[in-house]
């Protein structure tokens, strides 16, 4: 363990110094420009050897550990650099294809996914299948060597820019709901696919609705066995959630650092400011302590676990506390971005505060997490 940690420290030093020499791009607000910049950035990261770090070398990765990948994620955040645009592909879809894919799928899809040539989106949620994901209704019917797909997905990040979609579809409407789902790899250029961005409360427009109207998908694009899609999706979601928690933790720490720097420059040091920053700091220390445990679990190779739900709630709480405290420091001037109360850049903190409210919904609502904790971790009887 000590050897690994020493190695990680060296690796971190190397990442940090190389990153310091790179031109970290500014991310434009306008959607298409943002996508273009982030895609170029992914190519830079790929060339640097910082994508697919934990993937096998034969899949085009670096053959290192998830801990190394985490180091890169953290250093990117610390350098105020964006993450690669293809995170869904890199963290969720790629590992699934690597594990469950055919030789053809791995050969054809993984290299382009890794380099950022192909951006992937994730067609899981539906308007009527949110918390109850397994009730999804998008149908795929076999017709010769193809599946014909019809239905609607929602909350699909970057779908309007993506080349590929990892799509959960119902292939057996007669089976129990978890047992009739298959995992298809769908070319977004196929006739019948339409993606429409949805504007969020924050002003962001990354999420899309995606409509599938008799879209024909070749049978070789089925990932794993027919009707076995649910377990594939669940398998990789576990790792992705842990990774997302760890990334978000560093983002929160950087946010607090930035806010403190703004307050310091302004000279704000009254009791109200102190109390808010104190509360935020404490919440982030709890999150930091929790993630040490998560890292240890990841390093030990643990997969999805009900402990992920504890992580998620600790993260929600830290993130919502942090941004609520910062937003509170804006006072009545929250309404006027441009005026900088106590030196705070209110446009950023208002955006982040609104975004933090969604933290207890996406990736499994706080209610779902509490159910999981109560039943699977604490052993309380099902209702």
């Amino acid at each position: 363990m000590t050897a690994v940690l020493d190695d990680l420290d060296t690796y971190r030093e190397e990442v940090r110094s190389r990153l310091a020499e790179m031109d970290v791009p500014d991310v434009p607000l306008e959607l298409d420009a943002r996508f273009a910049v982030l895609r170029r950035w992914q190519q830079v990261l790929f060339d640097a050897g910082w994508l697919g770090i934990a993937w096998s070398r034969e899949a085009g990765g670096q053959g290192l550990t998830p801990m190394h990948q985490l180091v890169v994620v953290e250093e990117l955040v610390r350098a105020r650099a964006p993450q690669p645009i293809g995170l869904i592909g890199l963290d969720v879809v790629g590992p699934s294809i690597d594990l469950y894919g055919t030789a053809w799928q791995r050969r054809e899809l993984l290299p382009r996914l890794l380099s950022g040539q192909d951006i992937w989106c994730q067609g899981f949620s539906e308007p009527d299948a949110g918390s109850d994901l397994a009730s999804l209704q998008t149908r795929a019917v076999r017709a010769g060597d193809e599946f014909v797909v019809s239905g609607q997905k929602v909350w699909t990040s970057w779908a309007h820019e993506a080349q590929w979609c990892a799509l959960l579809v119902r292939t057996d409407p007669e089976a129990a709901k978890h047992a009739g789902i298959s995992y298809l790899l769908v070319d977004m250029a196929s006739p019948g696919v339409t993606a429409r961005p949805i504007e969020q409360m924050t002003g962001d427009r990354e999420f899309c609705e995606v409509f599938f109207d008799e879209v024909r998908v070749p049978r070789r694009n089925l990932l794993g066995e027919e009707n076995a899609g649910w377990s594939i999706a669940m398998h990789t979601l576990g790792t992705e959630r842990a990774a997302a928690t760890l990334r978000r933790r560093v983002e929160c720490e950087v946010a607090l650092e930035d806010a403190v720097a703004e307050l310091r420059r302004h000279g704000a040091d009254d009791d109200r400011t102190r109390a808010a920053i104190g509360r935020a700091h404490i919440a982030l220390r709890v999150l930091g302590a929790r993630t040490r445990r998560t890292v240890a679990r990841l390093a030990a190779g643990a997969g999805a676990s009900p402990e992920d739900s504890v992580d998620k709630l600790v993260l929600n709480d830290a993130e919502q506390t942090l941004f609520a405290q910062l937003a509170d420091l804006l006072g009545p001037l929250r309404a006027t971005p441009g005026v900088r109360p106590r030196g705070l850049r209110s446009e950023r903190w208002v955006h982040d505060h609104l975004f933090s409210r969604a933290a207890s919904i996406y990736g499994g609502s706080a209610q779902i997490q509490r159910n999981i904790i109560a039943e699977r971790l604490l052993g309380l009887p099902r209702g």
Partner: protein
Amino acid sequence: MADPTDDYASAVDEYLARAYEGDRRRAVLARGGWDPTFAAELADLGWYALAVPESRNGLGEPLSTLGPVFAQYGRHLVAGPLLESTLLPALLETDLLIRAVGTGAPPALVDPGITDHWTSDVGSVTLADGRLRGVVHAVRFAPQAEVLVVVAGSEHGPSIHVVDPRAPGVTVEDLASADPSATFGRVVLDDVEAGESAGDDVAVTRLRSWARLLLACELGGLAQRCVERTLVHVREREQFGRPVGSFQAVKHIAATMHVRAAGLADLCTAALSDADGASVDDLAVTAATVKAHAAHVAPLVCEDALQLQGGMGFTAENELSAYYRHALALRGWYGDPTELELRVGAAVLGTRPAPERQP
């Protein structure tokens, strides 16, 4: 229900449901909360004149009548300078003001006293030798205002002045807005003729107290509507083969939302029923109390509504997000919970009247 107060509120509710909700509201919000046609329409309807004295062609209702009407403004998320257009002509009997408002031309309230804890960020205005000098960095609807009501400080205490935004020395700068139903501007007063005082320190305290009460009522109505919409949603939305409203965890959040919204509505009703006859000091404590509670509770109700409506509540298309952002904008306007709890506590401990620290 022979109470005329409820009649006004019912009429407002009915009109807004018919003529504002839906496309009209979407259009007004899309314009940043200011639509001169809509403002003129409300002027024609006489809504701004409800509490204006009959001697000035108003309806002469007591100020408390405005409370239930503002609750409807909150319920329907009515955009525009309602507070300024309704309250200022009722409190300040200035011809300039009443004429402007009668046509739907908006007044702006240039008052550094919207806060105790951000005084240096908000700015201040000083009166000396009959001239006004200073800047207020956040003024609702300043860019559109056709008349400015300025609260200034001087060695004789605070006073109120009605100023033409086109007068020499007045500059109004546009600001971006994070409130979907209000615009904002910065008002710079550089040696501006103050004219006669339209009100003294007591008038300033009454003005701010009524602003707090009406904002609280607006937040109360806003919270009420969030409960209503959430109930519709959780009855209709099914997950795991049943309405989400049948899950106990969802029920308990809904019940908490209802208790909060109902408690806030009760508080507003009780405060209004005492307000017209109250002394200026008592009114100040009551208003701080009610606004503190509204500012605490309304955002919580919105947050629970967002939680229960899930992802869809977060889309800009779903107006819940606009309700929430408006609630957050009003939260700190004329005192956030922390500031006002301190004011109320000071008053209860006997350091009353709750002092107007600004200007």
